């Protein structure tokens, strides 16, 4: 394992800004894995740290394929991480809206360029991403429908779902999109949450990545390995087919289910109560049988807000699935 600072920037008020990379093996640039890019992505940073530890172990055991390089960037934004702010410290811009970056441009464009100059050289790219809405997910691999996405490869992670969505205008400046445009096979991995560490979910992600590394020939399989989370036959889900459940009232949000849980048609999923009087304001009921992919997590909720995303009909015949 080699540690290297791939981007540095001096500051007069703080320690220098440094993006550190960890390289395993050497030779053909095979896969790059990026952890947290925003300052509140604790789960993403934690997962990256667990992955680095696991790769160091595999390297020690001599199980990494010679002539292939794996690079992990645990944190693309240590400045924001250290002050608990999601976006960039001074101007609140999002590094993940600055790709492919510009090394003569503004600060976050330079940071994005610093990451991308390294990351773009790899054949595969994985990012531990987080969602703009606060909530928890069932673990899944997410890809954008750019024409370059490789669904069969995404299923090799063995996570419960592969979610495919059409890019929106702002997506064109994300790392994932630019990786694909510049010929890197790119995947975003969503574990449960963002601000809070979920070690079981992080372990599931690390096992999924090691499984993927075995599949693409970067890690030698060992019969002694025991997965806590055995591989699953991923359901391929299209974002436009997810059932989005919205609130009609604001108040305290109390959910009775968890991400990944199967629900029946007509099942009570959550209720909203009056924050002053404690009375019931609204019920959220599953309109169809399915599984919970995303769930709002904060105590309070606004009206007209998405609180659940359901994958309906996992037999492949209903709304959530497409062959």
């Amino acid at each position, binding site marked *: 394992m080699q540690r290297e600072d791939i981007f540095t920037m001096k*500051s*007069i008020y703080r320690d220098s800004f440094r993006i550190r990379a960890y390289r395993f093996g050497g030779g053909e640039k095979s896969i790059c894995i990026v952890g947290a890019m925003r300052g509140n992505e604790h789960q993403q940073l934690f997962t990256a740290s667990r992955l680095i530890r696991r790769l160091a172990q595999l390297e020690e055991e001599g199980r990494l394929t010679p002539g292939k390089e794996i690079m992990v960037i645990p944190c693309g934004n240590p400045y924001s991480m250290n002050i608990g702010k999601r976006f960039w410290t001074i101007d609140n811009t999002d590094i993940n809206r600055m790709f492919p970056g510009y090394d003569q441009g503004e600060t976050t464009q330079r940071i994005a360029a610093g990451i991308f100059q390294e990351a773009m050289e790899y054949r595969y790219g994985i990012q531990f991403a987080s969602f703009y809405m606060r909530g928890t997910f069932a673990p899944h691999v997410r890809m954008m429908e750019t024409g370059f996405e490789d669904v069969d490869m995404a299923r090799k992670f063995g996570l419960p779902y592969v979610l495919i969505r059409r890019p929106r205008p702002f997506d064109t400046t994300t790392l994932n999109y630019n990786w694909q445009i510049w010929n890197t096979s790119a995947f975003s991995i969503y574990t449960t949450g963002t601000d809070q560490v979920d070690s079981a979910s992080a372990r599931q992600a690390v096992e999924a990545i090691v499984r993927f590394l075995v599949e693409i020939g970067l890690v030698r399989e060992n019969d002694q390995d025991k997965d806590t989370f055995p591989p699953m036959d991923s359901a391929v889900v299209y974002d436009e087919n997810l059932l989005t459940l919205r609130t009609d*009232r604001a108040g305290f949000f109390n959910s009775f289910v968890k991400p990944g849980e199967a629900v029946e048609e007509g099942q009570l999923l959550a209720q909203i109560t009056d924050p002053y009087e404690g009375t019931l304001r609204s019920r959220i009921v599953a309109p169809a049988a399915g599984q919970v992919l995303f769930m709002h997590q904060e105590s309070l909720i*606004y009206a007209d807000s998405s609180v659940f995303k359901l994958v309906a009909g996992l037999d492949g015949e209903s709304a959530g699935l497409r062959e």
Partner: protein
Amino acid sequence: MIQTIASTELPADETLRIKKQRLLPLSYGTEEEDGLSAKEGRLKRISIVTGIHGDELEGQYVAFELQNRIRRQQEALQGIVDIYPAMNPMGIDTITRGLPDFDLDMNRIFPGEEDGSMYEYLAHEIIRDVEGSDLAIDIHASNIYLTEIPQIRINALTQRRLLPLASTMNVDFIWIHENATVLESTFAYSMNARSVPTLVVEMGVGMRLTRQYGDQLVEGILATMKAMGIWTGDTVPVRRPLVMRDPQRVAFLNAPAGGLFIKEVPGGTNVRAGERIGRLVDPLSGQVIEEITAPCDGWLFTIREYPVVQEGSLMGRILKNVQYELRMPETAGQEEE
């Protein structure tokens, strides 16, 4: 007549409301009952939109002063003026640029979705309400870091339609920029895509009012209303703007290192190559890190106000090889940059 165009319930005894003021010709009255009559449908309509970014306040003054001017000569109003001062009311009230609690830029969620999240739904309602206008003007105030000389920015895709409308707006400068996919989620792009000509004004600086710029723009809006046939009242001769199409004509001054930027010339100054614009200093060591000089002759139309910079922070923009002079209609030989 004040109308609520979109609203949503908040948890603790509050409703978020996006409101507009509708000014009508005297003969149409101002009462609710006249609100959306069939006659109104035949009137021309201009929509003044601002406050999408909660930290940009220059448009607040324009919303106030434009009404003031129209009310003084109400008989001269021949069409509908819709004024939307606060598209992001929670942002303005909390000095937050984006949407509070979501940390999202509201100007990246248009055209919104009727069945989307709360703010996507609000964005959808905004678009629906402004649709049908003959002209929309979206007033921005740069951000809290940079002061901009009054200017209109036009996507190259829409220049044929928008440039004539922009030319009476009394701004100093029109910047025609290339289309960027990421900008397709802005309010202006969404409106232009729906055939509502929409001009984006940038002027002044965040968190402040620059009355001089506000008054300048109000005159431009009235002159434009007159050209549209909505206004027959007083107007003043408007400035002839510089028009810039070639991105190579703009020099960007990015900070070579982090430091404290001490500005030495105001925005709008004509500068010579090598002329000092400011100094980048280190308050701890007391040393000058670098003198910031103009890389070329030109007109400094953007200047940094917020003094702390990091490597790459924008400190200014210069329109190369131009010496700006105030040009009124009678000035001969308007050049196009």
